[in-house]
């Protein structure tokens, strides 16, 4: 069988629509977001939160976001 690097347990990361990158800000601080494509997260340094991008859909809810360390 041919080799494959895809792990069936890990769904492929669907990238964020570039149109959204231009307009999204942190819902709490209205500050800028950094897009971590590999982790599938939008990071708000000011709020200390990482908002998940699931299946290409950004989930801009504080109660769904991961708290950043430090």
């Amino acid at each position, binding site marked *: 069988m041919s080799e494959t690097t895809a792990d069936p347990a890990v769904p492929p990361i669907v990238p964020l*629509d570039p*149109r*959204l990158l*231009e*307009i*999204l*800000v*942190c*819902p*709490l601080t*209205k500050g800028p977001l950094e897009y971590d494509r590999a982790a599938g997260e939008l990071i708000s340094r000011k709020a200390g939160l990482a908002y998940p991008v*699931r*299946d*290409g*859909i*950004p*989930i*801009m*809810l*504080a*109660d*769904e976001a991961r708290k950043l360390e430090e």
Partner: protein
Amino acid sequence: MTGAGPGGPAAPFDRAAVRRHRDRAAARVDQVADLLGELAERLLDRLDDTTQRFTAALDLGGRGVVAPLLAARGIGCVSCDLSAPMVARNPRPVVVADEEFLPFAPGSFDLVVASLSLHWINDLPGTLIQLRHALRPGGLLLASLPALGTLGGLRMALTRAEVAVSGGAAPRVAPFPDLSDCAALLQRAGYALPVADVEDVGFSYANPMTLVAELRAAGETNALAERDRRIPPRGLFAAGFADAAGADGRVSVRLRLAVLTGWAPG
């Protein structure tokens, strides 16, 4: 985000419930897509009153119905909803967001369309201000929401029936703003040329439980914070609907559709 929103502890709506209701409704909303589409079309008809052309719209809570109608008018849009399953019904790009904490940079859009999606928000003035910031100067807010009088006869009939059945009554129909509140809200939120007018839409049901099913399919289940979480008293809806029925046995209900327009100052 629930309970501790800007609405404070006395916030009338349970936002976690609103989200749950929309999550569940995502699988059923097709049942009412025609109706929602018709109501959205009525709202979008207002775009014909202006010569302005729009290219970048925000569809707030359009339930998969508004975005295609905007596309048919050649207007590109981003759809946004509190519920991930509900927003996934729209063509991309889509965003899950809380209408009380919007994640859009200033000047992101030239049009905001909110078709029957603002009435479960605790801090409506706050949302309207955030939407104004998300609009470019000269951008248009176009919104519809149920106004006072919506389901009014049913509200009274259910209250009378519940008092008769259980000696008390819980709120089963949400409070709706009156038209002058709507216009004042737009003005206070800083919109230019704020206008609120009303269109009456009547519905008639042979079996009023169809109405309950349709409201559920649209994600419109009661999300009042003070709602009675117990199973309704036996026979309540039957008694209430019997009270509300006309001589022909049908129940007529009214949707008073408030249509709000306001412009972001240039």
